[in-house]
């Protein structure tokens, strides 16, 4: 009896050991974890990754909501030099912070070793935008995995309605069309603002969180000829609060008059929800969301929605500029990851045209072969506009102090939106805080004799004499 018991115990032990052996062999498979914000594009990456031929490698998402917790999750892991994730999609502006802190793998080293992953498979501007630090150095810390731009969406049923067209022309003296300037956008927004019909002319973000207000306000600021700072002298006063910058942010704040009441604290969710319910005639929104806004399962107005390029503005110097915020993320690699060889192999596969063409059906790829293909522009109803939009992108500061500067500008623009401060006061206070932040970080601010009324004339000018029609 004892013998029998003993023998069955030994058999069980062997079985358990065998099972443990099997499971430990299963655990030996490589997992490549990535951090990104949850959404359509992360889902697309996961969907594509399921077909990765090397089945011993598993791509695991660690998704967070869009906003500060996304940045903070990556930054916190870097601060403890941890390897809880292997790669991450981070905002173009964060490259300076993460690469400057020495936490990101320099992609040039991968370019040198890989037979496929080379700088020239990406458009130079895209590679620079999503991965170069310092600017113009030729050193890259991210690949253009998900390009994005601020865009315009509008109700084509309203814009093409003959009655609306006639009424608009009678009131404003010119044809109703997709606006080329914010001056026109204001007229059209005013025209369609009919609270009694629960219809409003314009929707835009104004929320205090992360970069909600400033990605929108910067698009106005740059288009009116303003600048955030002088990257040569690090002067902020006289640039961020210059007359042209104030014109731009004032135009942005004024547009809330043509949005639903309380839209001053909206984020992208609220803009989408209002548009999908038919409450807005036009809205400023990232191309990122066009996939869902064009989907009849998501939006009841999907078949009536059209996409365009955001307007520009005729500034006080009578020059036309069209500049708006770059969105999207670069794919960066955690320097503390121990799986760089496996990750490089995955990236070599993932950035092949076949995978990127799948990605481009819903989100914006950064692979040149796909962007230049004949099919790309016809893959959906907004890629053609996106290809135009790429020529008008501008970005925040590419400085390691970005999160501080961003938060300070968000705070002050939010003050202007809520009416707590005038636009002039808010921008002057933001400029004061920015200079203090830069000085504390050790930047030497070289004050010039004077500051320009229209800073764009001094810093990489883009102003032209005629309005450029793109939509």
């Amino acid at each position, binding site marked *: 009896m004892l013998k029998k018991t003993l023998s069955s115990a030994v058999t069980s032990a062997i079985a358990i050991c065998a099972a443990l052996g099997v499971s430990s062999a299963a655990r030996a498979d490589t997992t490549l974890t990535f951090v990104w914000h949850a959404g359509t594009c992360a889902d697309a990456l996961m969907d594509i990754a399921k077909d990765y031929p090397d089945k011993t490698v598993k791509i695991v998402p660690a998704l967070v909501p869009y906003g*500060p917790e996304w*940045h*903070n999750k990556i*930054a*916190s892991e*870097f*601060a*403890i030099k941890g390897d809880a994730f292997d790669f991450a999609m981070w905002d173009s502006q964060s490259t300076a*912070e993460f690469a*400057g*802190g*020495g*936490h990101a793998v320099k992609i040039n080293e991968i370019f040198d070793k890989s037979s496929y992953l080379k700088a020239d498979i990406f458009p130079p501007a895209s590679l620079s935008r999503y991965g170069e630090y310092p600017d113009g150095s030729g050193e890259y810390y991210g690949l253009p995995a998900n390009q994005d731009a601020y865009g315009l969406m509008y109700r084509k049923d309203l814009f093409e309605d003959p009655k609306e067209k006639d009424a608009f022309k009678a009131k404003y003296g010119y044809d109703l069309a997709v606006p080329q300037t914010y001056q026109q956008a204001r007229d059209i927004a005013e025209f369609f603002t009919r609270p009694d019909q629960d219809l409003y002319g314009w929707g835009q973000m104004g*929320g*205090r*969180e*992360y970069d909600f207000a400033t990605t929108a306000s910067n698009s106005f600021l740059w288009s009116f000829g303003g600048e955030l700072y002088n990257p040569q002298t690090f002067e902020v006063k006289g640039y961020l609060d210059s007359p042209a910058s104030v014109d731009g942010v004032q135009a942005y704040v004024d547009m809330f008059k043509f949005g*639903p*009441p*309380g*839209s*001053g*604290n909206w984020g992208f969710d*609220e803009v989408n*929800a*209002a548009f999908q319910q038919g*409450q807005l005639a036009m809205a400023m929104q990232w191309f990122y969301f066009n996939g869902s806004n064009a989907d009849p399962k998501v939006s009841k107005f999907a078949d009536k929605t059209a996409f365009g390029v955001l307007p520009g503005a005729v500034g006080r110097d009578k020059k036309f500029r069209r500049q708006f915020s770059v969105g999207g993320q670069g794919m960066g690699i955690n320097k503390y990851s121990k799986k760089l060889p496996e990750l490089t192999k995955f990236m070599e596969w993932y950035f092949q045209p076949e995978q990127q063409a799948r990605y481009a059906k819903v989100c914006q790829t950064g692979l040149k072969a796909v962007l230049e293909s004949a099919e790309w522009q016809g893959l959906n109803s907004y890629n053609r506009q996106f290809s135009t939009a790429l020529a008008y992108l501008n970005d925040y500061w590419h400085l*390691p102090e970005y*999160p*501080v500067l961003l*938060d300070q500008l*968000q*705070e*002050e623009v*939010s*003050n202007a*939106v*809520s009416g*707590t*401060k005038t636009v002039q006061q808010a921008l002057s206070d933001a400029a004061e805080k920015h200079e203090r932040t830069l000085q504390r970080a050790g930047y030497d601010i070289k004050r010039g004799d004077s500051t320009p009324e229209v800073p764009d004339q001094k810093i990489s000018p883009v102003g032209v004499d005629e309005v450029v029609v793109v939509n």
Partner: protein
Amino acid sequence: MTQIDASNRKRSSGRLMILGFLSPSLAILLFMVAYPIFSLVYYSFFNFSALRPAAGMKPVGLGNYEFLLGDPELWERFVFTGEFVALCVSAQMLIGIFIGYQLQKNFRGRDLLFTALMLPMMMSPVVVGFLWRYMFNSEWGVINYLLTVIGLGKVDWLGQTTAALFAAAAADTWMWTPFIVLLATAAFRGIPETIYEAAEVDGASPAYTFFRITLPMSAPVLFIALILRLIDSFKQYDLFFALTGGGPGSSTETVSFAVAKTAFSYFYTGEASALAVVLLVIIIGLSMILVRHLNKMGERY
């Protein structure tokens, strides 16, 4: 002589035994509480960022404290935090005591109602923040819908400073009043029935009974509830993170919000440590005053 030696040995081995039993707990306490506090104080005297270790740690003495205490925006955050704490803790105590008093009585379905009332407290503050954010949405939120149903105008709850303060206090009160209800009910039910019977025989009115018997006799427990809520409200961060994001401007940023932002968004580790020390000193001071008061109250009743 031999006897004295033996008694000394006994005493000494007893002390050693006490120390032996206590040492694991003491070690854990030192590691989990004392070490972080001391390192926090130590870091507060340096200018450095945990995200940029290569830049090193520059000693700045009291520089971080001088910078923070000279920043008018920090004082605005203290004022806002104080307003928030006063508003929501008063509301929670008043509503909680009222409901607790009603729930001490026996009636059909009381246990079910009691359990249902506890539900908000079981949710995460971030979830509560997002939930109320949608409810306070000026266009399609249920709060404004109800206001329009009774003929009132819509309020931009989260876009204006004063409205946002009341919105946050309402969300916090919804979440934490059940905590006061829980403690108040327990305290009220702990009062011996004979005291109420004696009061009834003496012809005491219900108001007299409540203010002269129920409240004083449950005061120590209610005071503990007040202390816990004061400290917890003072530290409030996650509710504001989800509900207002600190806005409009920075008008709904609590001190804890500023600590978290400075530490994990700005990664100004030295400055955030100094701010956390200031917050810690305030909370310890507040707790000491209240605990002292509690002790006096315990002696009285």
